[in-house]
């Protein structure tokens, strides 16, 4: 009897999972991450092609069957390789794409810092001359007075 109960629960649970409504948002979210295979640089969500519609139908169907978005993506990756993903997975050689821009930005910042520090450390040009003595001061005053009308 208890075995039947367990079976019933399992069947009901499976039924409930299969019947769970799939939100179009989730379908769109998965579709937006997958490459439309017959297009140039378009996602399955953005392409109006027949193939993209069929791929969306497959996504919807698999989600409705209880698969997670990750599992649905894995289904496509198994068949098309990681090429199907619009953003390359962060591993192996692909890391170059993720790391190089930030490394470049960092290197640029360091370069700017180094140069700015070096320029600001340069000694101020033209040291002050000797302070004018009493005779010089008198001459300056006299000459200024002469020029004034």
């Amino acid at each position, binding site marked *: 009897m208890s075995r039947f109960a367990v079976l019933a629960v399992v069947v009901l649970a499976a039924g409930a999972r299969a019947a769970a409504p799939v939100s179009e948002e989730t379908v769109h979210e998965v579709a937006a991450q997958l490459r439309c*295979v017959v297009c140039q640089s378009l996602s399955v969500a953005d392409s109006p092609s027949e193939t993209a519609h069929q791929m969306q139908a497959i996504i919807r169907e698999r989600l409705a069957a209880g698969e997670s978005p990750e599992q649905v993506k894995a289904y*496509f990756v198994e*068949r*098309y390789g990681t090429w199907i993903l619009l953003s390359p997975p962060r591993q192996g050689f692909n890391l170059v794409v993720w790391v190089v821009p930030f490394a470049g930005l960092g290197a640029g910042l360091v370069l700017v810092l180094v140069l700015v520090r070096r320029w600001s450390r340069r000694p101020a040009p033209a040291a002050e001359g000797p302070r004018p003595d009493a005779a010089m001061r008198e001459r300056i005053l006299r000459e200024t007075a002469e020029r004034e009308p």
Partner: protein
Amino acid sequence: MSGCSRILRWAIPLAVVPVLVLLAYGFRTDPREIPSPLVGKPASRFALTAFDGNRVALESLRGQVVVVNFWASWCYPACYEEAPSLERAWQTYKDRGVVVVGVNFQDKDEPAKRFLTQFGHTFPNAPDPSGRVSVDYGVYGVPETYFIDRKGRARFKRVGPVSDELLKQQIEPLLAEGA
């Protein structure tokens, strides 16, 4: 000048080198050539209804070498180039344990049937109206051809038209393997 600026004077032109290496690598690879992860794995089962109404199922072909060709009538010229070779291969090998199966990709019934009549194709040929089989085989453009061994494993994938030589080259070793 200081050592630092001497390094900088070299570092800036040197920074171009990795970029050039990356570009050289990138331009040498063909972006249309996508390695299929399915080669070496058991080929996905499929069951389709052929244009002539018969059932075409991979399961029922176990023990034979199967050539699955994805094509479309709008795929000109590649599908038109390879069409006679496929029929020739079918005629040559059908009595030796090879089945050629055509799967019509994203096409309309009328032009597809006209294509089959034009080339006198006699091997089983079926449309894939829901696109399931094409996605299961990771098809991203036609023509694509899979070679499946007697045990049902995908052994080779050809993207682009097949020729008489290529068909022979791929079919013969699979035939020689035995069941």
